[in-house]
């Protein structure tokens, strides 16, 4: 079961890629939305200003109406004449017909009240009132400040119109107190959005009218607020500030002026939230839509990644897994000219090559196995042959040992018996003949022995053990010198190095060398034989055997070690001619060398180089004849 793939890395990267691609578009969209919102907000502001203006116009209309009214009233004789009692009665009768006015009246140029629709509760002095003074000053219609109606107690906005006599001097000031309640109604009717306030403020900052909750605000001064200062300064526009109730609002304001002199400011206050609600809603909606679209895009990318890319990647991974576990026939089976398709194709090709290589390798292994088996078989056959040959040789040597010697013994024995029994009847020549027969038989016996020794050396594997050459040579000397009793022989043996080899075989070799030395020094009055070490070099120890005998001609040195090769006449020196061949074979079987130097009649020196050992040979473990019973 292949492990579940969690290619989160690749998927995330793909999604990131999608986001990256969407990035500019998203950015642009967001930017557009923000711009839209700002435009929307601007529109809102404009709207607010428009509403303010409308409200202002309403107020202005009222003021204008008041002006017209006052101008009309100024034509009424009762008023014009400033006829106290008549004017009051007239105005009083008129007032109910103009519910928008709290009062109508006339004041003397000094400010004292002449007549009024509403009877004053006490003497009233208008000289300080803005509208009065301005009317006097400008000699025109003027609007004044806020005033609490003295009878109704309600807030009023006052306007004044100067009355002129025939000469053009001011006879009196006609004033009207405009109710502000109408504003509330108007505002209400305008159906301003929830939380919108409508405020009318006079030139000094006193709140003339407010909707909603007029009673809380009317009469209070807003002069201290920075908003008021802004309004006075800018006259028309929008501002965002926190109102007296703490709610941040968008304020749109405009100025009411008479003859260029502002007498009132109208402000619409919309709560931020409400004001920009639509704009913000629009933005949010757009952003939400954008987010949804983005999520949809990412979702599509997620799924698409799976379908278009990851699925195929998973196939690749699973195939690789199968390959790793040993199924070399696994292939992706993916096609396509895109990168993954090419990757899959390369992968399949690699798997193909791997499979082919493994098949090839197996084939080669099989071949090697077969060759090995064949080799083993051949080796076994050869070994069997060799063993058979060896055994034949063994039997041959055995046979030689026994069967060749017996007739020889008979030869020698009966010749000796003959010599004994027929000594009397034989002459010197006969006796000599017998001696020759005996000697020949003895010779042949020795030859057989030597040949047997020689062959035995070839048949067996020499031992490989540390050999004390000094001891071996001493033993060899004892054996070789047995026949030298009675002779003058001086021999020396220097300490010899240790070598690796077969002590028995080495003894035979040195017996031969020393026997030779003894034999060929027979002619000397004092035979001198020296055995010494000649140095150890590169794993080889060289030993020499030197004698002061007849020596030999170096010209024939190469013949020295051949079988049956002799460099001297048989009647001078007996011998089988096998001794040195035996020495050479023994030394060679030890991995050494043997050579000689001689001077005719000047002695001879035989050199033997033997490995000092240390390196163990595995085939040395095969036992020699001792192992065979």
């Amino acid at each position, binding site marked *: 079961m292949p492990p579940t793939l969690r290619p989160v890395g690749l998927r995330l990267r793909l999604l990131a890629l999608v986001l990256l691609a969407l990035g500019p578009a998203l950015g642009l969209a967001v930017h557009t939305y923000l711009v839209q919102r700002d435009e929307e907000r601007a529109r809102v502001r404009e709207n607010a200003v428009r509403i303010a203006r409308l409200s202002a116009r309403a107020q202005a209309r009222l003021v204008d109406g008041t002006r017209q009214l006052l101008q009309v009233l100024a034509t009424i004789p009762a008023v014009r004449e400033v006829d106290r009692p008549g004017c009051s009665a007239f105005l009083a009768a008129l007032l109910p017909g103009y519910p928008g006015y709290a009062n109508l009246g006339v004041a003397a140029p000094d400010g004292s009240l002449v007549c009024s629709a509403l009877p004053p509760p006490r003497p009233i002095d208008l000289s300080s009132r803005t509208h009065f003074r301005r009317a006097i000053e400008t000699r025109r219609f003027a609007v004044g400040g806020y005033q609490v109606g003295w009878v109704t107690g309600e807030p009023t906005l006052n306007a004044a119109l100067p009355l002129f006599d025939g000469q053009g001097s001011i006879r009196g000031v006609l004033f009207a107190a405009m109710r502000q309640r109408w504003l509330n109604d108007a505002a209400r009717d305008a159906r301003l959005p929830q939380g919108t306030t409508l405020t009318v403020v006079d030139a000094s900052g006193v709140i003339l009218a407010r909707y909603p909750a007029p009673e809380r605000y009317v009469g209070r001064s807003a002069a201290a607020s920075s908003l008021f200062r802004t309004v006075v300064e800018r006259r028309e526009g929008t501002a965002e500030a926190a109102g007296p109730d703490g709610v941040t609002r968008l304020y749109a304001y405009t100025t009411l002026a008479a003859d260029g002199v502002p007498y009132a400011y109208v402000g619409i206050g919309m709560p931020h939230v409400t004001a920009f609600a639509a704009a913000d809603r629009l933005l949010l909606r757009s952003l939400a839509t954008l987010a949804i679209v983005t999520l949809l895009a990412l979702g599509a990318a997620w799924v698409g990644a799976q379908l278009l890319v990851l699925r195929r990647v998973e196939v690749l991974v699973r195939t690789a897994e199968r390959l790793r576990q040993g199924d070399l026939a696994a292939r992706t089976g993916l096609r396509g000219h895109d990168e993954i398709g090419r990757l899959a194709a390369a992968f399949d090709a690699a798997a193909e090559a791997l499979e082919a290589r493994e098949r090839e390798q197996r084939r080669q292994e099989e071949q090697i196995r077969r060759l090995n088996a064949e080799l083993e078989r051949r080796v076994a056959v050869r070994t069997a042959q060799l063993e058979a040959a060896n055994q034949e040789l063994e039997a041959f040597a055995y046979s030689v040992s026994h069967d060749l010697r017996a007739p020889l*013994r008979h030869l020698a024995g009966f010749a*000796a018996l003959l010599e004994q029994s027929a000594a009397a009847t034989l002459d010197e020549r006969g006796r000599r003949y017998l001696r020759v027969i005996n000697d020949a038989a003895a010779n042949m016996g020795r030859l057989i022995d030597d040949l047997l020794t020689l062959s035995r050396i070839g048949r067996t594997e020499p031992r490989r053990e540390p050999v004390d050459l000094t001891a071996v040579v001493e033993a060899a000397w004892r054996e070789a010198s047995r026949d030298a009793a009675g002779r003058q022989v001086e021999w020396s043996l220097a300490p010899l190095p240790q070598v690796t080899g077969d002590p028995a075989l080495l003894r035979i070799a040195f017996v031969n060398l020393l026997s030779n030395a003894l034999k060929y020094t027979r002619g000397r009055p004092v035979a001198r034989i020296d055995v010494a070490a000649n140095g150890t070099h590169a794993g080889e120890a060289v030993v020499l055997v030197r004698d002061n005998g007849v020596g030999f001609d170096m010209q024939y040195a190469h013949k020295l070690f051949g079988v049956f090769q002799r460099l001297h006449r048989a009647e001078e020196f007996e011998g089988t001619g096998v001794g040195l061949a035996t020495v050479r074979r023994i030394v060679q079987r030890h991995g050494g060398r043997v050579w000689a130097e001689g001077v005719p009649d000047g002695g001879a020196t035989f050199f033997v180089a033997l490995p000092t050992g240390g390196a163990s040979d595995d085939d040395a473990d095969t036992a020699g004849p001792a192992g065979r019973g």
Partner: protein
Amino acid sequence: MTRIRRVLLAEDDPNDIELTLAALAEHHLLNEIVTVRDGAEALDYLYARGAYAGRRDGNPALLLLDIKMPKVDGLEVLRQVKSDPNLRTIPVVILTSSREEQDLIRSYELGVNAYVVKPVDFRDFVDAVRRLGAFWAVINEPPPATSGRSSTSRPQAR
């Protein structure tokens, strides 16, 4: 020199027999020598059976054995002699031409008392026989005569 009492010589070659007898005679070593021609005859003699059924004169004092004999060879005779409690005490000297190591090993494994290689040279052979005689007749103590057969020695001039 005291003489060895009866000696059993097992040798198939007549020439070798003659030579051995001549050598032994030269040193006047023998009282009595019995010759058998092969291993089977040797065993027949030792066990007093076959052609030698009814022999009553006990074990020989020395057994000279050649190795290569027809029918039963010397090593087989040696084996039988050394494994038989009645015959085990007979000293056995192998007298042979072979110096082959395998013969040596086998002989000693079977318990031979001595192994002598016959030299080719007759004088050497005679010398070896003399020394053998010196050993067996003079130095060596023969085993006490036991077994169910009485042993008598009859001086016999040659």
